């Protein structure tokens, strides 16, 4: 088990820098999810920690060691790949035993570890099969098993669930979470799926365009997103953003409506989560309904802020029946207002 420390990590391909100084500490036994849209550099970051990509600048520490110059094999890590990367010509048993064999462990020890992992992952009856005879979920488990048997200091997951169907993904997500808690191995998990990120991570590192936008617990990231990007990326349906102005204790919307809250003066972007708006006939946020989506548990109302063409989504509990074209009023509790500087996109409240 080990801490991981990233110190101002940079990565360039040719002249283009794709990671612009990533720093952060990952505690012993913690599961940190690196999340961001495709192309944000999250896989590159993971591969740098694994030793599959060179480090342009900065330092990676695993435990007490600076591992920048170490081969992947010497870093005491295990990695689960998006396409599982099982050895297709080996049985499940051989796949899991490969790393142990290379380390020269005695045969009984190898068998014991492989069978233990197979029990944990319910793979016992598949040990003599080849990967192509397994389903996607089973292959995924073999890949996990291969990581477990090595008993490494760190697990690295590179979008391990993205090749599975939706139902299996939910199930495997829970299994990974349980397994990681049980083994207590420091883990880094890369995904572009914000639900996966929210449910799995002890903490999230939200990456965008090679910068860390925010590094915090899922609840922190959800409740106090530090930038417009994080606010829009985490949460579903996505947060509403409205251009607004601050004026003596109120947020003034584009149509002149005044929402109580905020301090100071100046141009801001107001962020409102669809699920935090409260139906209120006299509420200041008035939305002209264009379309409704009934999801059963809640109802999504798509519309525009009245008097403007700024699109908004509101999520209300339960089944509602609202006519298109109707104007609905909503109020926004003060603690549900997210105010961002219009220029920098940084949080100001």
């Amino acid at each position, binding site marked *: 088990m080990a801490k991981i420390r990233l110190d101002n990590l940079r990565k360039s391909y040719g002249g283009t820098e794709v990671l612009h100084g990533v720093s952060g500490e990952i505690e012993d036994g913690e599961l940190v999810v690196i999340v961001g849209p495709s192309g944000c550099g999250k896989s590159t970051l993971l591969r740098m920690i694994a030793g*599959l990509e060179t480090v342009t600048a900065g330092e990676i520490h695993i435990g007490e060691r600076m591992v920048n110059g170490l081969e992947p*094999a010497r870093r005491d890590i295990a*990695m689960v*790949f998006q396409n599982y*990367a*099982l*050895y297709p010509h080996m049985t499940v048993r051989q796949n899991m035993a*490969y790393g142990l064999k290379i380390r020269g462990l005695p045969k009984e020890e190898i068998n014991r570890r492989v069978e233990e992992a197979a029990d944990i992952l319910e793979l016992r009856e598949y040990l003599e099969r080849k990967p192509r005879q397994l389903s996607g979920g089973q292959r995924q488990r073999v890949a996990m098993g*291969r990581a477990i048997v*090595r008993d490494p200091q760190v697990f690295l997951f590179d979008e391990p669930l993205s090749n599975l169907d939706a139902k299996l993904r939910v199930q495997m997500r829970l299994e990974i979470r349980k397994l990681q808690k049980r083994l207590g191995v420091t883990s880094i998990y890369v995904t572009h799926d914000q639900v996966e990120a929210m449910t799995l991570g002890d903490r999230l590192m939200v990456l965008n365009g090679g910068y860390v936008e925010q590094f915090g617990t899922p609840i922190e990231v959800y409740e106090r997103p530090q930038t417009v990007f994080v606010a829009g990326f985490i949460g579903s349906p996505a947060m509403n953003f409205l251009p607004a102005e601050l004026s003596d204790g109120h947020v003034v919307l584009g149509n002149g409506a005044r929402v109580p809250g905020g301090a100071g003066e100046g141009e801001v972007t107001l962020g409102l989560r669809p699920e935090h708006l409260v139906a209120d006939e006299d509420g200041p946020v008035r939305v002209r309904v264009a379309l409704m989506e009934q999801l059963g548990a809640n109802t999504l109302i798509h519309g525009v802020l009245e008097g403007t063409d700024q699109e908004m989504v509101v999520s209300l509990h339960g089944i509602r029946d609202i006519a298109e074209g109707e104007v609905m009023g909503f109020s926004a509790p003060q603690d549900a207002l997210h105010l961002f500087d219009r220029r920098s996109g940084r949080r100001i409240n």
Partner: protein
Amino acid sequence: MLKRVHFPPSVLPYLLVAPQIIITLVFFIWPASQALWQSMLVEDAFGLSTEFVWFENFQALFRDDQYIGAFKRTAFFSLAVAFVSMSFSLVLAGFADRVVRGAIVYRTLLIWPYAIAPVLAGALWVFMFNPTLGILAYGLEMLGYEWNHQLRGGQAMALVIMAASWKQVAYNFLFYLAAMQAIPRSVIEAAAIDGAGPIRRFWTIIFPLISPTTFFLLVINAVYAFFDTFGIIHAVTQGGPANATTILVYKVYNDGFVGLDLGGSAAQSVILMILVIAMTVLQFRYIERKVEY
């Protein structure tokens, strides 16, 4: 199953396959049947009369020590060519697969030998190893090794094996490189994380995964060594010294066009024909099935 009614009778399909069928008939079936016919004939020395003798030509062949010798020699030659050229190209492909900078240049240069006509390839090697003026023969002599493939059968065999292998390296290289690049990068990376060094990765992961290609190339190379090396042998040794490099295909030519034993020569080519058919069947039957993982 589609019913015939869907396709009203038409001459068009026949017209479309006609060119291929005509080519096959004229250039393959006809000469092959001629060879088959000829293999059962015996001609007198002046070509004035022929006699139909059934399988006597074949019987004579299998009683002939020289023919049996050529058979063994061919087996050795083709295995040696397959082994030398495949292992050489495997190593080259293994390195080319790892190269990042200038990969296209290496690849292009490595493909060139394939474009050289067999006779020219043979001529190049003859010049390099010519006992009196060859640069490599000269170099070997400086090292105290006397090279004269015009006198020594073993050296002559080594020389034609080298020349024939060299020409085939390009072809094997292409297939090996393609096979290696078809292996998902992540599998290699997983092995690296599992602690396997480059050599170990090669033998435990890459080599097993490209085994279908190895089998395919083995058949292709054997066929090549059996049939397409005539030009090289003709240019380098003419089958000598003392038949040391006379392989089956060269013997067909030698007995037929030099020795003028047309019947015997035709019988030999029929045997070669059966061999190549057998190898092709082997390849088609087993390539997809036997070697899989």
